[in-house]
């Protein structure tokens, strides 16, 4: 009979079997009746002789060699029934497992999307990112002539190209608006190994000055702006007042995070200014060249240039990083930490469920012994354990995977929108094959662990021992010790996670409250870019700014206003080299950040003056040239002297008088080291692009739209963009986000770990109480007080908690040193954090062990003694 037919014939077979046995039964009864036995007696005797009908049926079924699908279905239903009989255990075990598997799978999905999935370029491991390094730091821009020389002189790259990641201004219905995009040299996409899906790539030499201006479109821009219309090729678009022809569309999966978001990829036209730095480089290593060789080669090239062009290239070296490092390097520590946190959590969850399985196995020891005595083979009993464990693991795994989906969605929601756009690989976040395989693997591992735990337990004691009451003698103690060790490990792990979370939260707090040298609340900011044609001359620019500031100051609620050409708490610095007139050049470049600010800047941001004075708005180009320096510069270059009254010069022919010193403003990122900065009056060197800041007595957020419309009313042709309050700027800074997301993530893990650990402790103590009921009953009967019982139980759990704390403390300190990259202003062994975390753990654990202790103390001695 084919197996398919068997499936349908099964029901039939059952009916037949029942009928057959019933016939035998009735025939036997009839025979007895015929020989004179009364009917009811006959039935009774026959029933005795028959024995267990179900057993007979089972044997018949077995002898027919029923196929495994049927058997599996039957076993599963049996297993489910067993689990349903113990809802407390099942629910706890399944939820715990689902938590562990779900969290791990979700985190792994992130790790998969970011670190494991290859980048959308050809051979991404052979690509490097190039910078110029200067004494202020290693990751600064290249200039075009430097790029050309690097390209020509290097011996290690098969191709070298550059990109400029700043967007464009595009005309729209409401004036000029900023559009995301980048400028690239002609071979950029070829270096990356990317081919357009529509149209063509730039050809070699398309970046020559005489070639026409062309641009490539990103896939999402093609979707959004042109509705996937294939006729987009050949259309022109006006970017920054130049007309570009669209020649192709990039693939859907392409993205270049350092320049993202980018809708338009325009051809970069050359510049001859060697001192103008605005480019970053991307290069592909030649076959057989490794990173180290290439690095030293390009460093040599840069060194030669610095000797050839001492005016512009002095102390400008080359710096190189693998492209993958640039793209995922920042997020890698967070992800790896999240992964280890998830792994830890999974471990705790697994240990908890194994614990529960052991408790359950203990309570069913008698049942197992009886079944064994009745003839169940050892194999069958073991098979049942495996079956139940597998069932538990599968249910937990399925729930975990479903939960992982949800978790992934909520975790992505935590990431800010503009960070998401610069991490386009996260759009590919989904449960793909690798992630599923991971979840499956975890489930299988869990099933194995849960099956082995009770089996190993039963191996150590004979089944018959379970029949007697004293059966729990030695083996009970061994298990209790084992369970206790598990709990210590769990509590230790919870301690580690809590400590990590505490350190990160403290770090975040420190970061947000670090002294940035300004008072950031109630300040609204907005970027302005005036038309360079209309405001080409300095007088026009000065007049425009004066007009703007007058208008802004007149707005209701505004207390003061100012402008700057670059705001604090940003990176990609603007720096220049200065000299101190009258002092010999010691050959070292004194490079500092430079900011052009108006007089109102100081009052608007409420900076702190350390000496001298601020400049006023009256100080324009008709007055002598002034400068204000920050205290880092004063300490570095005027040690022990008062810089006020001294002179510095960027251009040796035009020295500047220092009129004031301010306490450092945090010009770089929140966690960047302090650096020297010089502030020059805006009116003495105006420009057509700047940022307007306004301090208001009212809500700074509400001021933003008012500011926008006020500025628009001055000149419709001005580009007005990026309105933001100063507080927003700090809270949305990348450094802040990194710290915040790590803190919240690890905090979430820590809370769950604490819950799991505490539940585990409860389980162990409750089991111990159950085991010792007799002992407690005897003691109480002999006169022990409730307090003695409490002490008895609690001393055991206190020992466990104490051990767990110590283990956790040591591990936490060790782990903290691994985490130092993510900590700010906090030491890895910060005493107050560790102490408070330990306190929380101890308190919750004590509470958890208090409950079974209370139950122990309220044991009725006679009941306890009688129950055995």
């Amino acid at each position, binding site marked *: 009979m084919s197996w398919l037919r068997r499936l349908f014939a099964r029901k039939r077979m059952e009916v*037949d*079997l029942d*009928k*057959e*046995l019933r*016939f*035998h039964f*009735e*025939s*036997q009864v*009839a025979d007895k009746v015929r020989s004179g036995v009364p009917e009811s007696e006959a039935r009774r005797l026959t029933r005795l*002789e*028959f*024995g*267990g009908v179900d*057993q*007979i049926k089972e*044997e*018949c079924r*077995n*002898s*027919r*060699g029923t196929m495994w699908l049927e058997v599996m279905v039957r076993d599963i239903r049996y297993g489910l029934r067993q689990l349903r009989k113990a809802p407390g255990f099942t629910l706890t075990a399944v939820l715990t497992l689902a938590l562990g598997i779900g969290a791990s799978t979700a985190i792994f999905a992130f790790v998969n999307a970011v670190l494991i999935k290859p980048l959308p370029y050809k051979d991404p491991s052979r690509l490097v990112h190039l910078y110029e390094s200067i004494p202020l730091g290693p990751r600064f821009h290249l200039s075009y002539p430097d790029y050309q020389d690097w390209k020509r002189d290097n011996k290690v790259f098969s191709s070298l190209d550059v990109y400029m990641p700043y967007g464009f201004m595009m005309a729209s219905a409401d004036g000029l608006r900023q559009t995301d995009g980048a400028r690239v040299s002609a071979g950029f996409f070829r270096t990356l190994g990317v081919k357009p899906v529509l149209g063509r790539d730039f050809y070699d030499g398309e970046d020559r000055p005489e070639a026409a201006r062309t641009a490539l479109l990103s896939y999402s821009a093609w979707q959004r702006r042109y509705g996937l219309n294939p006729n987009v090729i050949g259309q022109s678009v006006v970017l920054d007042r130049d007309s570009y022809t669209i020649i192709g569309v990039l693939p859907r999966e392409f993205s270049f995070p350092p320049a993202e978001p980018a809708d338009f990829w325009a051809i970069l036209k050359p510049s001859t200014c060697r001192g103008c730095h605005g480019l970053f480089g991307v290069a592909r290593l030649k076959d057989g060249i490794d990173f180290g060789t290439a690095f030293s080669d390009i460093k040599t090239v840069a060194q030669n240039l610095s000797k050839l062009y001492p005016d512009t290239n002095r102390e400008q070296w080359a710096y190189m990083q693998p492209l993958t490092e640039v793209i995922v390097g920042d997020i890698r520590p967070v992800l790896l930490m999240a992964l280890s946190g998830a792994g830890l959590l999974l471990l705790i969850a697994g240990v908890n469920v194994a614990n529960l399985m052991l408790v359950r196995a203990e309570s069913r020891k008698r049942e197992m012994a009886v079944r064994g005595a009745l003839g169940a083979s050892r194999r069958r009993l073991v098979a049942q354990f495996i079956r139940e464990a597998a069932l538990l693991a599968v249910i937990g795994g399925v729930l975990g995977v479903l939960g992982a989906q949800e978790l992934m969605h909520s975790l992505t929601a935590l990431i800010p929108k503009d960070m998401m756009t610069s991490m386009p690989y996260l759009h590919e976040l989904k449960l793909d094959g690798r992630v599923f395989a991971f979840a499956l693997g975890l489930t299988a591992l869990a099933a194995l662990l849960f099956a082995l735990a009770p089996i190993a337990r039963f191996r150590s004691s004979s089944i018959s021992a379970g029949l007697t009451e004293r059966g729990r003698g030695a083996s009970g103690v061994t298990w209790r010790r084992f369970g206790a060790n598990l709990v210590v490990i769990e509590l230790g792990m919870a301690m580690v996670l809590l400590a990590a979370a505490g350190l990160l939260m403290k770090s975040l707090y420190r970061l947000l409250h670090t002294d940035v040298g300004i008072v950031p609340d109630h300040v609204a900011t907005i970027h302005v870019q005036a038309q360079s044609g209309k405001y080409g001359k300095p007088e026009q620019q000065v007049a425009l700014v004066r007009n703007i500031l007058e208008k802004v100051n007149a707005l209701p609620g505004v207390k003061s206003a100012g402008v700057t050409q670059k705001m604090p708490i940003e990176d990609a610095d603007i720096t220049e080299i200065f000299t101190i007139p009258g002092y010999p050049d010691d050959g070292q470049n004194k490079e500092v950040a430079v900011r052009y600010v108006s007089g109102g800047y100081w009052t608007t941001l409420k900076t702190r003056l350390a000496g001298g004075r601020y400049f006023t708005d009256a100080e324009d180009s008709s007055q002598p040239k002034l400068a204000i320096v920050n205290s880092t510069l004063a300490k570095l270059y005027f040690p022990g002297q008062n810089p006020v009254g001294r002179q510095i010069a960027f251009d040796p022919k035009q020295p500047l008088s220092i009129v004031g010193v301010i306490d450092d403003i945090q010009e770089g990122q929140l966690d960047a080291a302090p650096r020297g900065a010089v502030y020059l009056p805006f009116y003495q060197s105006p420009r057509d692009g700047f940022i307007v800041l306004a301090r208001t007595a009212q809500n700074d957020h509400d001021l933003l739209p008012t500011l926008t419309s006020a500025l628009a009313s001055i000149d419709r042709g001005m580009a007005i963009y990026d309105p933001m309050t100063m507080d927003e700027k700090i809270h949305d800074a990348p450094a802040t986000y990194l710290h915040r997301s790590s803190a919240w993530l690890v905090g979430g893990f820590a809370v769950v770990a604490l819950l799991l650990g505490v539940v585990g402790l409860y389980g162990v103590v409750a089991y111990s109480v159950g085991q010792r009921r007799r002992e407690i009953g005897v003691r109480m009967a002999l006169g022990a007080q409730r307090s003695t019982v409490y002490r008895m139980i609690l001393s055991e759990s206190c020992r466990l908690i104490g051990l767990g704390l110590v283990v956790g403390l040591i591990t936490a300190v060790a782990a903290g040193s691994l985490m130092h990259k993510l900590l700010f202003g906090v030491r890895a062994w910060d005493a107050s954090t560790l102490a408070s975390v330990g306190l929380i753990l101890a308190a919750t654990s004590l509470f958890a062990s208090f409950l079974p202790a209370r139950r122990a103390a309220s044991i009725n001695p006679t009941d306890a003694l009688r129950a055995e």
Partner: protein
Amino acid sequence: MKTKDRFDLPQGTLDLLIMRVVALGPIHGYAIAQRIQQMSREALQVQQGSLYPALHRLEYKKVLSAQWQPSETGREAKFYELTANGRAQLKAETESWKRLTDVVGLILKGTLEGIS
């Protein structure tokens, strides 16, 4: 496998007995048990727990074939019959049984002589 009173039959033997009984014509399970009891002069009483699994096993192995027919009491019963394959098996197993018992009897007779 348990039989009442005196004999403990090895498993294969029950199969042989069943085949022998069924060879005489289509017969249902109850009648098989009665027949074995009869033919062994009440020495062998086969329990349902052994009989029916054996019957089903033999049916699965295609030694017996079964059909539902009305019985002598009027109720429907499952009647077993020997298949051609079963007939051949019966012959083969009967022969090997005869040979086995002859050999064993030889050895036992020899030993008994030595002792007595």
